[in-house]
C-alpha cells in the first residue's frame, strides 16, 4: 500500500482548485467507447499541470498531459478523487510508470463504489423523496427544490471531498476510499430508500389519478401484480420498454373504440 506523500506539499492555488472543480463537472464531455473518460481526466488535471517545471510549454507538462489523457474509467463523481491524486502525483514528480500503474488500479474501485453508492442508492432515494413530497401535495417549486437540493448536497459534496482527499493523499488515496462513511453509507441509505419507496408509491399514484378513491385500489393491485411480473423476468426485459408496448396498445384501443 502506498503511504501519503511525506515531502513538502506542492502548492495548488485556490483559483487552480476552482478551475479543476468546474472542469470536473464536465469530465464526461468527451466520453467515448475507446478512451471512456480518459480525455476528461486530462482536461481536468491540466490546470494543475501548468505548475510543473517549465510551465505549459515545458516537456514535463506535455508528457504529463499525454499520460493523463489516456484511457480511464470511473464513476463520474469520483473522478474527483483520481484527478486530485493524479495532480498531486505529477507535481510530486512521481515516476511515470508508477503513475500509470496507479491510474490503472484506481479505475475499478472508483467505478464500483460510485455505482453502488450514487446510482444504485442515493439517486433512487432522492427520486422517492421527491415523489413523497409530490404525493403530499407540495408545489412544483418545493418538489423540484427538494429533489435538487438533496441530490446536489450529496453530489457536490462528494466531488469536493474527492478532490481534496485525492490532493491530500496522492498515490495513497485508496485509504480514503476505505473510509467507513463511504463503505457503510449504501446499506444505511438503502434502508431509508426502502421506506421512502413504500411511502411514495401510493401517494404518487393517488395524486396522479386525482380526486376520488374509486380506481386507487384496483390500480395498486395492478401495480403489485405488474411489479411481481417484472421482477420475475430477472432483468431479461426492462419495465419501461414493456410499458411503451402497453401504453401504445391502450392508445390504439382508446382511439378505435
Amino acid at each position, binding site marked *: 500500500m502506498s503511504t501519503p506523500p511525506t515531502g513538502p506539499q506542492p502548492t495548488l492555488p485556490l483559483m487552480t482548485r476552482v478551475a479543476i472543480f468546474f472542469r470536473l463537472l*464536465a469530465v*464526461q*464531455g*468527451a466520453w467515448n*467507447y475507446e*478512451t471512456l473518460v480518459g480525455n476528461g481526466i486530462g*482536461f481536468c488535471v*491540466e490546470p494543475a499541470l501548468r505548475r510543473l517545471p517549465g510551465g505549459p510549454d515545458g516537456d514535463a507538462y506535455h508528457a504529463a*498531459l*499525454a499520460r493523463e*489523457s489516456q484511457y480511464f*474509467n470511473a464513476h*463520474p463523481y469520483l473522478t474527483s478523487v483520481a484527478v486530485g491524486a493524479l495532480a498531486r502525483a505529477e507535481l510530486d514528480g512521481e515516476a511515470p510508470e508508477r503513475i500509470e500503474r496507479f491510474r490503472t488500479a484506481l479505475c475499478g474501485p472508483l467505478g464500483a463504489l460510485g455505482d453502488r453508492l450514487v*446510482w444504485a442508492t442515493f*439517486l*433512487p432515494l432522492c*427520486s*422517492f423523496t421527491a415523489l413523497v413530497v*409530490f*404525493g403530499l*401535495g407540495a*408545489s*412544483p*417549486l418545493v*418538489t423540484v427544490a427538494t*429533489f*435538487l437540493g438533496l441530490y*446536489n448536497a450529496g*453530489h457536490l459534496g462528494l466531488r469536493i471531498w474527492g478532490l481534496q482527499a485525492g490532493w491530500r493523499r496522492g498515490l495513497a488515496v485508496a485509504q480514503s476510499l476505505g473510509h467507513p462513511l463511504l463503505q457503510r453509507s449504501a446499506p444505511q441509505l*438503502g434502508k431509508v*430508500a*426502502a*421506506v*421512502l*419507496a*413504500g411511502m*411514495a*408509491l*401510493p*401517494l*404518487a399514484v*393517488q395524486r*396522479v389519478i386525482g380526486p*376520488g378513491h374509486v380506481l386507487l385500489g*384496483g*390500480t*395498486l393491485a395492478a401495480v403489485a*401484480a*405488474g411489479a411481481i411480473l417484472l421482477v420475475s423476468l430477472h432483468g431479461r426485459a*426492462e419495465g*419501461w420498454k414493456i*410499458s411503451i408496448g*402497453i*401504453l401504445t396498445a*391502450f*392508445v390504439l*384501443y*382508446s*382511439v378505435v*373504440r
Partner: protein
Amino acid sequence: MNAVDVLVLSLLGGVLGLDTVSFPQAMLSRPIVGATLAGAVVGDAWSGLLVGAALELFAVETLPFGASRYPEWGSAAVVGGALFTKAAYGFDAGRLTTSVLIALLMAWIGGWSMVQVRKLNAMWARNRHEAVARGTRGTVIGLQIAGLAADLVRGIVLTAIGLVVFVPLQTVTLQTWGSSAPLSRAVVVGAAAAVALGAAYKLFHAVPGFAWQFAVGLAAGLAGVALL
C-alpha cells in the same frame, strides 16, 4: 404551440440533455425536474410536475451506469411536460397517456442519439490520437469542448424534432380518444408505479430488513392517502 415556444423548449431540452451525462450531471435532467421546468416555460408548472412525477416513476428503473445504454430523460421530459401542458383543453382524457407515451419514446430515441454522439467523440479522439499522445493542450481541451457542443446540439435538435412531430400527432389522437380520464390516468400511473416498485425491489431487496422497511413505508403512504 408557437415558434417561440418551440425555440425556448428546444434550448431547454438541449441544456437538460447535456446534463444527462456531459455537464454538470446535477440531475436537472430527471423527469420530475425537466417536465416541471417545461410546464413552467409554457405556462403551467403544476401540469409539468404531474407528468414529471409519472415519468420519474419509470426513471427509477433506468440508472446511468457507466457505458451501459440508458434512456435520455432530459429532452424527453421537456417534450412530455410541454405536450401535457399545452395539449388542447377539452381533451383531458388522453393527455397524460399520450404525453407519457411520447416522452418514453423520446427517451428511447434520446438514448440512441447519445450513443451516436459517443461514437462521434471516439472518431474525433482517434483522428487526434497523435496530438493527444504529444500532450497538446489545445487538442485535449478541444476534444472536450467539441463533445460538449455535440451533446448540446443533439439535445436541442432532438427536442425540436420531438415537438414538431408529436404535437400534431397528439392533437389528432386526442380528437378521437374514447377512454375515460380516470381510466386513462390509472393505466399510465399503474404501469409507472409497477416499474418503480419492481426497480425498488431489484435495488434494495438485499438490504437487511427490506420487506419490513418497505411495509412500514407503504403503511405510512396508505395512511397519507386516506388522510389527504
